């Protein structure tokens, strides 16, 4: 069975390093499925779940933006922040989403619009990750 080397690193942690049969992630232009032998690709990483199919089950991580580099035998996720999906807290994520939505609707506030929109996208992606994880269980 062919496998591809995967490493997920964020600026303050090495989240995962190992092998996988298939990798699913959200690139800046849409969902990506990465199988071993993929052509070299460089793309942005959108906030969202990164799912790995490994020999012994599945692993899910949450990444909030960064870069993906793909080589035929290797995938590297350079995330700004990344965490194991198990440690995500849904209540926290929903709170963050509400806060971002409020700031977005309240355009007069000091907060700048693009920042609020980015925060909203991140919170939404976080919730999506949690829900996906739950469905898989």
């Amino acid at each position, binding site marked *: 069975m062919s496998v591809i080397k995967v*490493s997920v*690193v*964020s*600026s*303050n*942690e*090495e989240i995962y*390093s190992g092998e996988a049969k298939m990798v699913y992630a959200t*690139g*800046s*232009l849409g969902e990506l499925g990465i199988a071993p032998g993929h*052509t*070299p*690709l*460089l*793309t*942005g990483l959108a906030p969202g779940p990164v799912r790995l199919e490994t020999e012994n089950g599945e692993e899910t991580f949450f990444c909030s933006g*960064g*870069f993906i*580099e793909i*080589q035929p035998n290797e995938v*590297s996720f*350079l995330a700004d922040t990344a965490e194991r999906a198990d440690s995500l807290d849904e209540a926290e994520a929903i709170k963050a989403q509400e806060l971002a939505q409020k700031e977005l609707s309240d355009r007069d506030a000091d907060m700048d619009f693009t920042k609020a929109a980015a925060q909203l996208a991140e919170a939404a992606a976080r919730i999506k990750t949690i829900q996906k994880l739950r469905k898989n269980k």
Partner: protein
Amino acid sequence: MANTKEVRKQIASIKSTQKITSAMEMVAASKMKRTQDLMMVGRPYSNKIQEVISHIATSNSEHSHPFYEDRAVKKACFIVVSTDKGLCGGLNINLFKSIVAKAAEFKTNGIDSSFALIGLKASAFFQSVGGEVVATADKLGDQPNPEDLIGLTKVVLDLHKNQGVDEVYLCSNRFVNTMTQQPTITQLIPLPAIDDENLINTHWDYIYEPEAAELLDGLLTRYIEALIYQAVVENNACEQAAKMIAMKNASENAGDLIKELELLYNNVRQAAITQELSEIVGGAAAV
């Protein structure tokens, strides 16, 4: 000859200094562990991004980024990583010395230098020495936040973009071990070329999503930020190690000084007693 009271006072003052230095030694020792951990956790990211960057350098990209361009050098920029606080031996001054030497060497070749400074010690030094300072960042603390460095990085990269500087160097202390810290100057821009023939001779390129220019710009900026951040946390680890050693030496020196002074004190005391006795004996003989 000194009197006993004076010597006693001196001993007391050195003892209190010794207490302070040994307390600082212990504080530095405990902080050292934490700063070293911080240095370690940042390493996988900077190693990985370095790997990706080297892949990019070997790809036959349709787009060549300005960071790879070798321009005629008229101006260089040094990003200097120093500490906020002193009392860490020659850590900062050794680094500054090597930078000043490098800047002088550039000057003879007709290259001007400017500086972007991290840490209060660098600001103080280059204020007194002189030199064009383009940006500063200080009071980053023991757990520096990458975001606090973005401003400084942006100033330098924008300067490079607008032809304000042609080369960028990163100057910081490299952590070898607790006893040794090595001042190093590494070239950031232009990014050093890679001469691994096997990789260069194979023709391949990435698919870029979305545009190559945009992606490379983002990634290379991120890379430079990561390198600077890593240098800052490494320098922090160096600071604590150097401080621990400096304070240890200071405590030991204080101990030696106290021993000497105690000897002097006993001598003075004995001399006073002898004198008093001889006075009494002399007085009794006279009667």
